[in-house]
């Protein structure tokens, strides 16, 4: 695990630039202070102040489209990062016992403090090579079938299940269709509804449609502050509705895909705060927030009987939907 430097200049988002500029100035000041042996403590503190204020200003007024770009940030922590920072004794398990091992969804045994859990999630890569290996986090049916196999094992041995969601969607490919992408996701939706152990889901990056939902039927559904969850990508939506993928910013507004929107609509239970500057600037602090949230929800869910867990999960999704009736 590499420590994160503030605002990696290689992957700077547009709206992060003013902050990066200030960081540069701080560096310059430090240099002058060192070479000239001048005490610049006061100036530096003022600059740090300015930076944190600016970050706060920028991050409190992000547009949905800017949030999309944070959710997709190439340096955004991945499921494996979170597993390493939140859990211990992780043992990765492989394969769906039908066809293969999908590297776009990983999972296995892990301990959350003293609790044995089954953890799993979509796995994106950090560079092109990794992304090709992980198919950019877009799973084939094997991935969903492996996830379900692990969930059923967790149920058998009475271990809670924790899933991390971060995918642009299930892979739309020839092999995926032939091997039943639709069936694999559908089965997960149905069978996850019947798991008699606690299921906690967190959307950490992109929650892309059915490919996300395929491992996201939980008693608790959490979202990181700058993650997104949507029935279609803003680009896909724009190209269908406006016949122009470039109008994705507009589509992002329309789709109401942010954590705040979903909390308001009753789709999620909690927003897990990200450190100022977003998860990609501080893996550790993000992981700590997630861990605290997991522990809290797990404590609550542990008190429920298996039948209450089933009822809790069914009722949660049962009431979703808005319509008129006379």
């Amino acid at each position: 695990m590499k420590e994160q430097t503030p605002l990696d200049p290689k992957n700077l988002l547009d709206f992060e630039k003013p902050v990066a500029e200030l960081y540069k100035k701080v560096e310059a000041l430090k240099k002058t202070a060192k070479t000239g042996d001048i005490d610049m403590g006061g100036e530096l503190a003022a600059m740090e102040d300015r930076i944190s204020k600016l970050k706060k200003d920028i991050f409190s007024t992000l547009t949905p489209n800017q949030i999309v770009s944070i959710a997709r940030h190439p340096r955004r922590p991945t499921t494996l990062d979170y597993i390493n920072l939140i859990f211990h004794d992780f043992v990765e398990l492989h394969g769906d016992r039908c066809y293969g091992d999908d590297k776009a969804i990983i999972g296995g045994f892990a301990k959350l403090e003293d609790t044995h859990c089954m953890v799993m999630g979509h796995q994106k890569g950090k560079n092109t090579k990794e992304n090709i290996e992980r198919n950019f986090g877009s799973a084939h049916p094997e991935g969903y079938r492996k996830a379900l196999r692990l969930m059923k094992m967790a149920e058998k041995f009475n271990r809670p299940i924790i899933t991390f969601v971060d995918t642009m969607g299930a892979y739309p490919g020839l092999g995926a269709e032939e091997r039943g992408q639709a069936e694999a996701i559908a089965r997960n939706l149905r069978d996850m509804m019947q798991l008699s152990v606690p299921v906690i889901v967190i959307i950490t990056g992109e929650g892309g449609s059915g490919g996300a939902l395929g491992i996201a039927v939980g008693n608790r559904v959490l979202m990181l502050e700058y993650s997104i969850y949507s029935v279609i990508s803003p680009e896909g939506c724009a190209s269908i509705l406006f016949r122009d993928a470039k109008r994705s910013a507009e589509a992002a507004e329309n789709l109401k895909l942010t954590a705040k929107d979903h909390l308001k609509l009753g789709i999620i239970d909690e927003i897990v705060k990200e450190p100022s500057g977003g998860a990609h600037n501080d893996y550790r602090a993000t992981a700590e927030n997630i861990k605290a949230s997991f522990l809290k929800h797990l404590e609550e869910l542990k008190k429920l009987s298996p039948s209450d867990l089933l009822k809790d999960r069914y009722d949660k999704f049962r009431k979703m939907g808005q319509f008129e009736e006379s």
Partner: protein
Amino acid sequence: MPLSEWFSKKKPKISGEYKAEKLDVPGSLWVKCYKCKETIYSKDLEKNLKVCPKCSYHFKLSGKERIAMLLDEASFSPYDISMRSKDFLNFFDTAKYEQRIRDYEAKTSLLDAVVTGEGTIKGKHVVVCAMDFSFMGGSMGSVVGEKITRAVEKAIGLKVPVIICSTSGGARMQESIMSLMQMAKTSGALAKLAEAKLPYISLLSDPTTGGVSASFAMLGDINIAEPGALIGFAGPRVIEQTIRQKLPPGFQRAEYLVDHGMVDFVVERSKLKDTLVKCLDWFGF
């Protein structure tokens, strides 16, 4: 060709395989078959269950036509007839969602993309849901999700089998995340139906894709497809764009899905009712 047309932009033709079917103009006397181009007298077509007498191309059926075709005469009593969609997100694309709903209501005289209710098939009591592609491409929003869920819950109460006839492009974008959640909701209801040991027969007709195929449509104890129906998760065009290669002939068509183990069999419309009765009989109903 007149000279002026030389300069007009022509839309690239989509290969015949995936050509979207235009809706029938009601009241027209003659219909042209989309597949063999034969001109058919519309009354003959209707008598033949909307199957082309020459090439046996299966035209799309409306939800009401499907129910009339499957159920015993006058046995149907519908559920939730007043439920209609609501624009709770203020969704606006080229038109307001609110306006789109009203336009489709006027055009189709339906309130949404599914008709649900109970009735009998050769005396066997069943709950039936029939989707309607003519209402916003059969897309699933809150209304479709809720009506199907309620119908399944009704069946559990009545202890009768469920038959869902799907035809849909997938989730309804205008209801965004809420339409995605309908996938989990309907699948959850089917889990309860299975727990009650009641049969669910899924009939997949042309087309069944996206969020509908990735939820209730693929979850039948038996999945039955109509001949030639396009069935899949992603649409063929999206797949072609993603993998940048031509798709094999017949890809994602009903017969292809039988070959790949995704549906139990393909059945012609004329034999559908008898087949359903046989299956229901085997299930003990």
